[in-house]
């Protein structure tokens, strides 16, 4: 393991966690989409770097998917949808920025403590990657639970999924990574197309706790 190889991989994976934190405190839809595009670019760089240092050409495909699909197509599609549906405004968040950030820091601390502890025998790069990936995953989950808006939740889910791709590429020689990233892209495309086709304007107003209560508690 060269020093530089490791440092760059470390930098990019750490950068992904940082961008996750940036996503955490966005309270406007457009800003959220822009930060998500940045998230995908960082992921793409990170995967590309892994492909280079692991000498695994198939990972370039995953990097390309991340760049083209996640950093360009999806944000643009969501952006247009927001314009068409006229919902560009602030997102209602469940808790304030301060507590959310503190919770995020706690989650990152937790994932580092867990992953670094259990992967003591694995090689250094994989350890760090897994720890960062779990952080991104948990932060994505936090983003999802703190938004009351469907687009906000989708962006949270997509960042969570980026963490998984990071973990999968970090695990050296893991098979099916490309297939899994394609499967995830299909999943995301499904949601985005689904939201769009159903043209559920009011759903963006109502994917919040109150509306869910209505369904949960045997309405009528």
């Amino acid at each position: 393991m060269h020093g530089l190889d490791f440092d760059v991989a470390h930098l990019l994976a750490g950068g992904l966690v940082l961008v996750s934190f940036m996503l955490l405190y966005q309270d406007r839809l457009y800003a959220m989409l822009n930060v998500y595009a940045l998230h995908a670019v960082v992921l793409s760089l990170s995967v590309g770097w892994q492909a280079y240092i692991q000498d695994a050409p198939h990972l370039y495909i995953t990097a390309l998917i991340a760049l083209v699909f996640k950093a360009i197509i999806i944000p643009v599609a969501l952006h247009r949808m927001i314009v068409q549906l006229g919902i560009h405004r602030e997102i209602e968040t469940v808790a304030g920025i301060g507590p959310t950030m503190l919770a995020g820091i706690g989650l990152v601390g937790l994932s580092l403590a867990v992953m670094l502890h259990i992967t003591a025998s694995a090689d250094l790069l994989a350890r760090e990657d897994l720890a960062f990936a779990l952080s991104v995953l948990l932060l994505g989950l936090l983003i999802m639970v703190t938004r009351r808006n469907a687009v906000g939740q989708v962006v949270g889910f997509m960042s969570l999924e980026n963490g998984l791709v990071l973990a999968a590429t970090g695990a050296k020689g893991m098979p099916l990574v490309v297939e899994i990233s394609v499967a995830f892209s299909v999943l995301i495309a499904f949601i985005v197309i689904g939201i769009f086709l159903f043209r559920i304007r009011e759903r963006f107003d109502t994917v919040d706790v109150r509306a869910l209560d209505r369904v949960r508690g045997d309405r009528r």
Partner: protein
Amino acid sequence: MNGLFNGVSLVLIIPAIAAALLAILPGYRLSARLNVLASFLTLLAALSLFAWHRPPGTYFLIDDLNIVFIVLNTFVGFTTSVFSARYIGHELDTGRLTPNYLRFYHAMYQVMMFGMNLALIANNIGLMWVAIELATLATVVMVGIYRTHEALEAAWKYFILASVGIAFALFGTILVYMAAVPVVGEGLQGMTWTILIAHVAKFDPALLNVAFVFLFLGYGTKVGLAPVHAWLPDAHAEGPTPISAVLSGLLLNVALYAILRFKMFMTLNVAAIAPGPLMVTVGLVSVLFAAFMLYRRRDIKRLFAYSSIEHMGIIVFAFGMGGPLANFAGLLQMTMHSLTKSGIFFTVGHIAQVKGTQRISEIRGLTESHPVLGWSLVLGVIAIAGLPPLGVFMSEFLIVSSTFARNPLLAVALVLGLLVAFGALLLRLQGFAFGEPTGSRAPVRASYLPIFAHLALVLVAGIYLPPMIVTWFQHVAKMLG
């Protein structure tokens, strides 16, 4: 039986071709029939797997465990397609679905069957994950197919929770791979189940522990276990009833199958935590929670959805207890629950259609207004509540008695849950089945065959279980450890 067309490939190829055909063919009668035909052929292909004796390949595996799941899966898939043909015709008549949506519905039905079959025969934990994701996606779309506000809400909730669950499961899968690499080397063998199980004793236990927690949480969401069950009642209540039947009868089982496969890893690695206590706790919580929730239900499909949570809890509890007897009972309970619950949903589907409502308070006196449906429902509820002589009674009795022998306190808690659920179901049954009939008395054009087939199987299994099945299940129970 050689070359490309053998049982294993046919179980996948038939649904795939059928899905493609159904997506382009117009006309609901034709597609409904084609759907039935394809499901029947898949069932035949699945049955041919009993004669399959070949070593596992890189991607596919047939062993005594998954053959039980595959045959059950394709059987209920077939009977549900028969029920669905009649049910969907009615939905078309009342205008709840348009022909275009139906084309989509039938195609998705086969995509879902394909996904579930692939997940069951996969010998690769990554492939299994992809397949379960595919099946989930197909069901999400079908839950939202009515496009009412509630249906979309349910589909969204299902989608978000299932996606998070699936994401956790993938993280767990990656951790298993990480644990495998130092022992079996990089590449495909690090994900091939048969290779993993052969070497699992040498894996790093700490990694395996964390992996199992993620996998259990992830796939457990799809099983509908208590803290992460919230999607299940909504998805059952708002989607078309054939989908409720396959969700309860099949998809929950597929996720359970994934958990069982990984549980076998944990039992073989002595240094890792025992998966039993975790499964027993979560199972018991699900049973108790669902049992009490049954009392507050006002929607008939939601009622049986909670009953599914309860039964999945019992099954996970049984597998968590482990040992030949409890595993045997768990397998039996799973089979009986699949058959009974989908049978109940067939009945409920027709009832909700003829009465035009799913509200429990508006459905009364069924045995008088629609005797066949009414008594089928009575029989179904008696079966699912665990009364003798039906099959569920036998499996629940085995689970309780084997638990009593090992841990009486746990058994008491389980029996409490069972009794509470029993009370709730009988209370509700009283309302549906007897008294002055309400609502429409119009004769119903129901497809009785699937209902009778399921209930008859459950009844027969309760009275006489063929020795062949008993030995088969005993063998599988030993495999599960």
